[in-house]
């Protein structure tokens, strides 16, 4: 059981959250991409070993999306960032 820090509610148990996968930057203009580039965005994940920036939703709590840095080997969690901010950082 992971203890995940929701940036709005604080430390909560993993069961309150749902996983949103890798925190990927959405292309600003999908239509300017080739099919290959668009497919890269849709279907391909880095499958990182180590620190992983990923999205979670506090679905059984405040319902906010946010991102965390989680180590995929040790499950250590470094920080959590509200979704808007994490997306801005990505850009």
């Amino acid at each position: 059981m992971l203890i995940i820090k929701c940036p709005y509610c604080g430390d909560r148990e993993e069961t309150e959250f749902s996983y949103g996968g890798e925190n990927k930057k959405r292309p600003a203009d999908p239509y300017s991409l080739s099919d290959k580039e668009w497919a890269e965005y849709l279907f391909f994940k880095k499958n990182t070993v180590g620190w992983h920036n990923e999205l979670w939703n506090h679905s059984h709590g405040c319902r906010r999306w946010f991102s965390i840095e989680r180590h995929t080997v040790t499950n250590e969690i470094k920080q959590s960032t509200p979704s808007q901010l994490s997306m801005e950082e990505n850009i």
Partner: protein
Amino acid sequence: MIKQKFRQTAGGVINREKSISFTFNNKRLYGYDGDTLASALLANGIHLVSRSFKTHRARGIMSAGTEEAGAIVQISKNTPKSQPNMRATEVLIYDGLAAQSVNAWPSVKFDIASINKLFSKYLFAGFYYKTFMWPKSFWKLLYEPMIRQMGGLGKCDIINDDREYERNNDFFDLVIIGAGKAGLEYAEQFLRTHKTKDHSIFDKQSTNDTTLKILLVDENPLLYLNKERIQKLGKEINVLTHTTVFGYYDNNYLCAVEHVNSSKIDQRIWHITAKQVVLATGAIERPFVFKNNDLPGIMLANSVQTYISRFGVRCGKDAVVFTNNDSAYQVAFDMKAAGINVKAIIDIRKTSPFEGRTDIPIFTQSVILEAQGKNHIKSVTVSQIKSDEQSVYRVKQIISCDLLAVSSGWTPSVHLHSQAGGKLSFDDDKACFVPTTTEQNNVSIGACNGDFSFDISSISKKWEIENGIGKSSYVDFLEDVSALDIRIAAKEGMSSVELLKRYTTVGMGVDQGKTSNVNAIGILANALDKPIDLVGTTRFRAPYTCVNFGALAGKELGDLLDPVRTTPIHDWHVDHGAVFEDVGQWKRPWYFPRTHESMQETLNRECLAVRTSVGMMDASTLGKIDIQGKDSGKFLDLIYTNMFSSLKVGSVKYGLMCHEDGMIFDDGVTAKIAENHYYMTTTTGGAANVLDWMEYWLQTEYPDWEVYLTSITEQYCAIAVSGPHVKKVMKHVFPEESFSNESFTFMTSKDILLNGINIRVLRISFTGELAFELHVPSYHGKEIWEQVYQAGKPYAITPYGTETMHILRAEKGFIIAGQETDGSVTPLDLDMNWIVSKKKDFLGKRSFLRKDTSRKNRKKLVGIITKDPKVVLPEGAQLVKDPHGSIPVNMEGHVTSSYYSATLKRSIALALINGGLENKGKTLYAPIEGSIIPVEVTSPVFYDPKGDRQHAE
């Protein structure tokens, strides 16, 4: 009362005032309060407890703790408290306890299957892999039933467990596991040196000024521990005794089982999150590997000492001690002091530091080659090791004894350290694996860290006493794995311990190899001529000891297993005989059978009622989301494939939602209630996902848009009323309203006030008939349902369930998201181009340009009718062009929905097939269970293709 022959007159922590009566194999025996089953049996002179797993050899009590690999019993057989495969060393006796040997028939002393011993040379390493391979057909008929009959230990009684279990969750700043020497000292030292409110020890930023929460856990009952010191600690910190931490997971998350044994609660599972964990789990002594080392009466040295000090029980009269280290000497002295005749100490080492310091004869540089006895040890054969340290002198000495105490070293209990991700390395001086690095906030102290309270440095490292090639030199007593098995496995290429484990099953018994793993690794390393560190250990996994399924389930049984969601109208459905269907956690009426009516007869009646008169259905489980804010319209344009921003107030529209890959994931109707205010419905199963999905886009990509989403699924009931007579029913319920096509047009909604209740009425149709949906505040749901039902009585209004709904919509070719779609279906695949906007962008649109989604031969929606109208295809049936083609036959597609339609008096089906309606009129075949069913491809709209009926006046 029968005298306990092996009980000392004094000593131990048992309560001699309180005699306990119990049975073992139906024989009445007596022990004292505080006895374990093992100590009580030993007090009565009983060593032989069970038979081994494969070869049915005699197995006795070999330890005093969780490492027990010999004395396996079944408790309370054929009762609701039955527990198979319990270690006699862990069971506390109580009045009326009934224990039984496992794996023995007709009795543990005369066991018929022990004839296996004669065949034991055939039960070699990899036996299962090699033997039962051929012929294949024999597996099901012969091998499997035979193995099941012979194998296994206790029997699982199929009786409901009536014990009470519960679960507790807690957080602690510090958890100390183990209240032995190291754990106790740590706890006491911690309290002496730290302020009880100093949180900065664990978290530098902490501003918390509460008292630190500290927990000390030990698997032993308080009685066996240092009671005074623990009781004193208990005034300042939390203490849990008779509690085993069995799992160590990520983020310092621990699971423990507390044996409460009160009249109310049997066991309690603890889920603990700790900031810091201190592991003081001690070490386990290892047995020697020599011929017949599994005989009852051969015990781990320190456990012989435990039986004396804790229980006042002598494990024998005439004893021999066999050791390779110093720790067993104190045991020998204690045995002697307790009145056991210690005839000799056999020490493998060249010299013993105790020579000349005791009158017990010490045989240095000597080994026990073998033990003799049938159901109990009678004697041992001792010989001296030659100076080459490889072979022994031919001169042998036989020493008769009824107890052999062995110690071939100590294995730190590193299970929790390892479960937590910590690494191990082999310490050559101490001949054991010790913790090195940790991955989590924990530290190992004391014996589990290889810091023993005695000098281990002079230990001799001899992993097995080789006396020819003996099959009966056991490494794993529970799994019947011998030193020979390990050597064979090594020879056959099992070069790592992980392979060895699976091939020989060493360490896979209910003790999880607590006494056998290190010996097995040592022998494997010898056989491979590799350093032990390179052979490695297997990864330790939870649970550390066996945990009852009942304890893990806790209170989550029966009705509490999973939450059940019911609509406010549920009781009415129950009263009217509904058969329910589970949709996620929802209970939905499936159909409403009358007495003696079959399911199909019910469905026929319900369908015809809707098509010819009027029917009603509880649609309250639909997901409902209230959407407000100035950017709501723009937002819906993003989420749905069609345009919603241009919708007029009071209008309703059907919409499809796609993921970014262009695949449909949900659908539903959305009404525009007011400017910047929408009321969305989703599928029953998709409600939560749709909300998460919409929140995702609002929060991540468009945080500056002003849109507020509120789930109101539970706040509203939805009642669908449908059929040619619906307007008359509606008029009766709402006498003030006009339901003419002019004043209440199709695909509009109105909020109507009825006796102070605001009812949102949507004129939409999922049946193809004239239809309305009444969305009622939940509190009034049942009341309005009842009113509609009464108003409909003159027209024989018929309540119908989900199955009839499915048939009616299939007759119209309406899809169900999740049935016609499976995450690989685009709106274009369903010929729903009309709902895909060309004017605006939306989620998924970019993907329609991909080569794969725009190719011509995609699977598309069609109708399917069987040539024989009576045959109803099974859903999921594959369709092929050539039923006699060579295998593998090309699949054209599959049936997604299939029903018998009473309206059309024939079966109908929907399917997704290559090229879709290009195949209209063609014949395909459904090969099903040996027969081939010819079908024809048709339009998916079977009934009222022009859609006139829903617009009727």
